């Protein structure tokens, strides 16, 4: 697989709705994620960004949604998490899980069972973790949040997914490490992974080709990330809940 940008949708969301308790979280989301591109889904807290990623991944509590999700043209609505993952979809959590006793080596090999030891070590090096220091550490509280994020990214590198959602990739990460994560994202894209950032960070948004602006569980704008960034910073952050699509302020993706 190459990292060529296409205008073909790898993921299609069709009128996605989700209610959690008495709250309507996703409110008719229709979205096309183009293969080979880097996308960002932005919005303020509570806009529905992480819920959307959880729904696409099929996490427990997010399975009873309306509408449909198509991956490479096939509905994944009835599929479990692992079935979706084996098709090529994965998610990096905003706050990665801690695993008592589980070694970094075994964690990153989870999605890459036939990978050589050298390959595992290379993935750790790529995300900025020294294999001799980290390979046999446990993925537990002895690792910082930033280190666990890097370990998770290494596992995604090894998995070579078709589509990776990275939820708030910069949270808990120092400035130098953010740049490294951006380089890893370029590498992922170069190897054929379509990347979707879930973010409310301008720095992350700027790494994307295209962006979707979510508000109140709806896509209220989409287009080139530079324009969405400007709107997000100037109009959205103070939060006047408006609908730029209705105002005709769109551009081509």
């Amino acid at each position, binding site marked *: 697989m190459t990292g060529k940008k296409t205008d073909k949708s790898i993921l299609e969301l069709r009128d996605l709705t989700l209610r959690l308790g008495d709250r309507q979280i996703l409110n008719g989301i229709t979205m096309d994620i183009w293969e080979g591109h880097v996308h960002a889904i932005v919005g303020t807290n509570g806009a529905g960004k992480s819920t959307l990623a959880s729904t696409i*991944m099929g*996490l*427990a509590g997010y399975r009873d949604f309306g509408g449909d999700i198509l991956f490479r043209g096939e509905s994944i609505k009835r599929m*479990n*998490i*692992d079935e*979706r*993952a*084996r098709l090529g*979809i*994965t*998610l990096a*959590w905003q706050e*990665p*899980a*801690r*695993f*008592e*006793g*589980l*070694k970094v080596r*075994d*964690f990153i090999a*989870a*999605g890459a069972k036939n990978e050589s030891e050298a390959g595992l070590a290379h993935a750790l090096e790529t995300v900025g973790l020294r294999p001799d220091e980290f390979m046999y550490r*446990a993925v537990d509280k002895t690792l910082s949040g930033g280190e666990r994020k890097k370990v*998770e990214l290494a*596992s995604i590198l090894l*998995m070579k997914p078709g589509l990776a959602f990275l939820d708030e990739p910069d949270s808990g990460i120092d400035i130098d490490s953010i740049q490294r994560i951006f380089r890893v994202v370029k590498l992922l894209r170069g190897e054929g992974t379509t990347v979707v950032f879930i973010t409310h960070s301008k720095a992350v948004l700027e790494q994307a080709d295209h962006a979707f602006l979510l508000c109140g569980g709806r896509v209220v704008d989409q287009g080139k990330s530079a324009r969405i960034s400007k709107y997000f910073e100037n109009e959205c952050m103070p939060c006047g809940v408006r609908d730029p699509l209705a105002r005709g302020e769109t551009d081509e993706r």
Partner: protein
Amino acid sequence: MSDDTVKQELYSSIGQDPHTFDNPEIAHVTINENKVLASNTVPGLTVDVRELPDGIDLRMELEENRVIQYPVHMCFGVIPRTGVQRINLDVVIGKNSKISLMAHCSFPFAVDVKHIMDAKIKVMDGAEYSYFERHVHSETGGVNVLPKAVVDVGRGARFRTEFQLLKGRVGIMDIDYETHVAEEGLVEMTALVSGSGDDHIVLHETAFLEGASSRAVLTSKVAVRNNARSEVFNKIVALAPYARGHVDCKEIIKDNGVAVATPIVDVRDAHAHVTHEAAIGSVDKKQLETLMSRGMDEDEASEVIIQGLLS
């Protein structure tokens, strides 16, 4: 079966290279049922073994001020499908000495095997004794493991023990360790056990913190699947000023497994401090979903999480 064949079978079951024991600097004793198949000792360490009708009496004494460089290996096995192995252990670790002991207990073909240990252990002042017990069982569940130990830990002495079932079904296991800790002594006891089928796991680990500033940490990590049952009764009694202790029990249950944890903290000195935590539940959802999002199915992901916890 010749003694050599039994010995090879025993070493093979525990994954031990027999040539390890060619090194004269490594003390070891290999026992199948009630018969000593091989042994070696090193300067400062006396090991006397007496064969009994259904087991052995083993007395091990380490002189004062001795440090044994390499871990001492004890291989206790019952290679036949049925049998009883009773081990009466009498251990004295002399003052300011240091020793580490690796006990391999192997019952790889057991259908009805009983392994009973009755140990009296004295770790004298300033000494260090680490005891790692690794079990290999058959898959039938036909093993009964009943180890009992009373351990005296002297002033400033350290006693560490770690029990782990490496392979096979538990069967029935009832571990009962009682430790008495003198001033500034330290006890660390860890048990890592995974049960399935109709296994029954009982852990009684107790530390009496009798001396000032004595310390104990009792850790149990248990997983029960299918219809397995575990009962953990870990107890720290603090009787002296500045005694410190912690009881930690984590248990994962799957299927129809049943887990009971009863951490007991008994503090009888106002300057002592003992804490406990117990957590029992299914495999953590977020951990499971993380591994599943890399393509593992639920059972495979659960197993990876459980093996991590028990590692």
